[in-house]
């Protein structure tokens, strides 16, 4: 893998990460917030893949498998929380959760 391509991929992943961060800040719905988090995690995964090819070394690629797995588990727990929250508040807007403060 050439350095130019590496830089391109790194830029892409950086963009993905920032997009996820922005999404988290701007969206008020818990489900959409999860999507944003997935975006951020996958930006890191993309980095691993790119570096793995660049170094010609497989651990980075293997890491991605585990990363995807972790993201999936995270999604499962997140969806469980969504259900829990919906039962308690009948709403998925996490920005209204301000009972705990000060």
């Amino acid at each position: 893998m050439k350095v130019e391509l590496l830089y391109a991929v790194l830029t892409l992943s950086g963009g993905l990460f920032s997009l996820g961060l922005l999404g988290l800040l701007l969206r008020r719905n818990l489900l959409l917030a999860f999507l944003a988090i997935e975006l951020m995690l996958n930006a890191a995964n993309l980095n691993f893949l790119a570096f793995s090819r660049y170094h010609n070394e497989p651990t980075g690629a293997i890491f991605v498998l585990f990363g995807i797995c972790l993201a999936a588990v995270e999604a499962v727990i997140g969806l469980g929380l969504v259900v829990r929250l919906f039962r308690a508040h009948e709403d998925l807007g996490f920005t209204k959760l301000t009972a705990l403060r000060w």
Partner: protein
Amino acid sequence: MVEQILPLALALPLLGATTIGLGGLWLPILRKQKYLIGGIASMLVFGAFFLFLAAFLSYKEPSYFAFAWDWIALDPLRIPLRYQVDTLSLWMSLIITGIGALIHLYSIGYMAEEEGSWRYFAFLNLFIFAMLTLVLADSLPLLFLGWEGVGACSYFLIGYWFGEEANARAAQKAFIMNRIGDVGLLAGMIWLYAETGTFDIERLKDYMYGGEVAMGVGLLFFLAATGKSAQLPLYTWLPDAMAGPTPVSALIHAATMVTAGVYLMARMDFLYNLTPETLSIVGAIAITTALLGGLVALAQQDIKKVLAYSTVSQLGFMFAAVSAGAYTAAIFHVFTHAFFKALLFLGSGSLIHATGTQDIRKMGGLRKKMPITGWTFWIGTVAIAGIPPLAGFFSKDEISAAVYTRGTTGEATFYVYWLTLVGVAFLTALYMGRLAWVALEGEYRGEGTPHESPPEMTIPLGVLAVGSIAAGWIGLPPLLGESWIREHWLSQSIKELSVPSLSHGTELFLLCISTIVGLVGLGVAWLLYGRKKAAGDTFFSKHLGRFYTLLSQQLQVDMLYERAFVQPYYILADLAKDVIGPWIGRGIPALVAQMLSRLGEILSRLQVGYTPLYLSYMIAGGLLLLLWVLTG
């Protein structure tokens, strides 16, 4: 060899304490198995004793047992978890586990009717462990741990029947009196560390030289010893400590724990050798205590009180030996005293067990009804009175010879000390003779029909009686042969204050004085109590008048302390409550606290509970961090 034995011997009583303690707490079934509990506890201590015996037989040179890691590892303070076996600590360990094992055995019978004796045996085992830690410790903090550990066990066991207020009070008194002394140990320890930078006893020996430090630390350690070993002015807890079960009084408050102070001073011999002036102060206090204890013992009617004051007096003897620089004589007296005082206490326990009272006026004629207890009690009496060839004679004679010798070096006060000691020896024979004749001879004056105690109680009595007869023979005076314990054993770890040796004539003179004083004391006791059937008390109260009443009221020291220390303390506390607290305590500190609380409330308003805002704070923080790192 010793390195392998020691951890096992230390672990056994600890194992007993934890298993019996936790088992008793959590397994109600176990609590009912009193013989099992007592049996386990005794077996473990016997095991420890035989291990120490093996170590004794194979002893060659001082050795250590250390954990690979440090007890306290906070640089620069590093205190290793290390135990040291030398002749002194091994000898003390033998006394502790040997006498301790016999008393454990005795306790099985004594506590047989007691509910919840698991608590008793757990603490007794824990006591053995703590006491072993005390004597085997190689550094002062570890010694202090053992010192406090025995104090705590003593507290728990004095207050064993804490349902009664008096017992709980006695326990607290012992605890507090001991704490006063402990301040001395702690302060001395820290002072030494500040001067030398080490807590290690062996290394301290190399660092110490005379001067104020040695004197100050020596006095502080002596303060600690007055607390634990019941010397003036802190002795008042010991007579009250008799509130505990009698075997506890025998083990802790007569044979072992109270000798810890003597051990401490023998261990710290180098400090005292450097400053003989300190020893003169020790001597004055020791002699006064011995005299006071002997006088008060004469006027007590409670059998355990008599023995308690006798212990105070005998401890005075030991410190008198220390003051003469004859630490081996002190340890020798610890050894013989452990036998006959444990014997006397256990015998009195057997009498109390049979008659149900501690008042000697309600006893009498018990030798015929309880022959084993009676005869062994007599052996103990003769031994403590200092009649040859029983044990007490040899150790007491060595002490008085040492004090006399110190007098010949030009310290004239030691002649006075010696004379007083002779007087106290006479008193000892007198009050012990009184006790034996009143309690054991004549007609029975109590209720019911007392019976001899079960074998688990009489066997220890027999063993201790043999010890009370023979224990002194390892320390023969130079005139009669060679003192094995001094020349061949303790001299390896204790360095005595060097004094010239006595001529044979003087020595013979001292031996004769000791013997005669003991015999005369017993003879006077026979005249007053044996022949004329307890007429002695009226004789004394007639001739001594108010002084005798004062003696029977234990000199009213408790009331004196109450007036001199406790009441002023209450006044001080009231002052703090009414004046210092409201006027000074609630001024500036309250203002600062208020301001800080306000500040805290304002700061916590940042915590608005709105998640996206938290996120943006975080991102801002991260960007700042990045900016700082990139710009350097």
